């Protein structure tokens, strides 16, 4: 009786997953396999790839720019993602109230995600301009020393992280959808039991949100470690390689230096690193993520 049920369920499982399988085998698997293949070749895109074994990986292990770009990326990811997550959660909690006008605030917090990338780049270059930007004007009026922001090699990464706070609208939305799923009765019951707002947050909100916290954490790490467009346009990796991110260096190798084989090796290593981190996170999630309703 049990096995028959499982067989039917398994079949349905595959049926439901089939659109993904279709896309995976039609569009995704060939490029990935080719990428892995190229990583073992000398491939300048102009001529067919030549098998070179692990040469690219050896060069990778000796390349000082790999170390720098990996450091920059991990710095940006592991400081940025938790901070942005926190901000997204704070914003979501702030606008999950049935107060007047809260719809406007929700929209305003999401606007930076809607504004086209070109516009937001320009805006940030102006805000952080050391001489004329809003940020330093504010600092000066408060009597503090103005900062070099993106022009200062020690402040460039923190500046990028600072800019990231402004893009947490998407995270906020997901948290809002998650908050929406929490039955109001839970809070009512807790209030009756005498729980204050902090306890309600810690024992109801957080656990109920844990599935989306995990989502935002994993997708945040995956996305942030591949940061490219903002540094490509705003800093080109400078000053002095302080914002040289991993995928930027990868891109330059692939399309500017005609080292597609080397770039592919970089891609494979990044994949392995992020995969490892994700699996670790998923494994740990069994300890703190609650899917079942309380």
């Amino acid at each position, binding site marked *: 009786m049990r096995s028959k049920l*499982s067989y039917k*369920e398994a079949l349905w*499982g595959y049926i*439901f*997953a089939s*659109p*993904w399988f279709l*896309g995976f085998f039609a*569009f*995704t698997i*060939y*490029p990935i396999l*080719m*990428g892995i293949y190229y990583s073992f070749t000398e491939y300048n*895109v102009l001529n067919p790839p030549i098998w070179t074994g692990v040469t690219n990986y050896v060069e990778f292990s000796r390349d000082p720019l790999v170390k720098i770009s990996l450091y920059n990326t991990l710095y940006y990811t592991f400081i940025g993602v938790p901070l942005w997550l926190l901000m997204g959660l704070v*914003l979501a909690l*702030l*606008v999950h109230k049935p*107060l007047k006008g809260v*719809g*406007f*605030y929700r*929209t305003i*917090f*999401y*606007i*930076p995600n*809607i504004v*086209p*990338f070109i*516009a*937001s780049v320009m*805006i940030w270059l102006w805000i952080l301009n050391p001489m*004329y930007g809003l940020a330093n004007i504010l600092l000066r009026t408060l009597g503090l020393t103005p900062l070099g922001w993106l022009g200062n090699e020690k402040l460039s990464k923190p500046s990028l992280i600072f800019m990231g706070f*402004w893009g947490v609208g998407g995270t906020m*939305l997901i948290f809002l*959808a998650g908050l*929406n*799923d*929490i039955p*109001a009765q839970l809070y009512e019951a807790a209030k009756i039991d005498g729980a204050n707002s902090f306890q309600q947050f810690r024992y109801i909100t957080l656990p*109920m949100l844990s599935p*989306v916290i995990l*989502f935002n954490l*994993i*997708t945040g790490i*995956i996305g942030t470690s*591949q940061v490219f467009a903002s540094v490509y346009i705003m800093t080109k990796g400078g000053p002095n390689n302080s914002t040289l991110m991993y*995928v930027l260096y*990868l891109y330059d190798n692939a399309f500017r230096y005609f080292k*597609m084989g080397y*770039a592919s090796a*970089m*891609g494979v290593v*990044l*994949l392995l690193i992020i*995969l490892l981190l*994700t699996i670790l996170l998923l494994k740990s999630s069994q300890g703190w993520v609650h899917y*079942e*309703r309380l």
Partner: protein
Amino acid sequence: MKDYKNFLKTIIYYMGVSLLACLYILPLLWMLSTSLKTQSDVLRLPPVLIPHSPQWSNYLTIFKRLPLGRYFLNTLIIAVSTMIGSIVSCTFVGYGFSKLRWPLRDFFFVVLLATMMIPFPTVMIPLFLTFRRLGWINTYLPLIIPTFCASPYLTFLARQFFMSVPNELIDAARVDGASELKIYSSLILPLSKPLIIVIGLFEFLYAWNDFTGPLIYLTSQEKFTLAIGLQLFSGAHMSEWHLQMAASTIVTLPIIVLFFILQRYFIEGITITGIK
């Protein structure tokens, strides 16, 4: 006394949220402000937020530079199609990865996640060649069809939400003889209004602003999208920022309105109140 405390709390709340809102609305204001300046005023130092003589004509000039109307239509087609594709396929596949047990499910779930971990420059050329072989270059198919195959980010999101649906509800429906398909369409989907709105909105917005994809696959200018168009305001040494911001404003405003309308729905959406 309690009323006074609540009143104070509310005031502080509104002050705090308004302060944050000022910071978050800054880009929109700056965009609007730049869009009304003349070319030489745009980056005049020191910068002014409110231009002395607003150049509303900028909003007409941009249509002279580019066929924005056609780009708007093109982008709308892509955005609506991908939105439908994602809503349908991500929830469908998400259900498969959450509430159904099948061999190697968790392994393939990790594979699904892994497809997000490969930097685009690595796969760009083989992907392009795949679509070339299919004859899809210079069409919208490379942008639309893959969204019908459950793109990983939104499928992951759907899976997380579905995992939270109580198993009792589903088991009860199964015992009642409902097929998995019926469970999916009549039980899971209606419970997931917020999720569906988020998936639809995210995919729509992504398609609206994406320029990497359209840029690689489209080779006729009349097929271009708004996002590509926004990049076409620069010469070799200078840009027409004022026009670029005017175009950006036109691209942004409809979405802001759309979002404002939508955000109400998924807050008021159906909450799971337990087993009915």
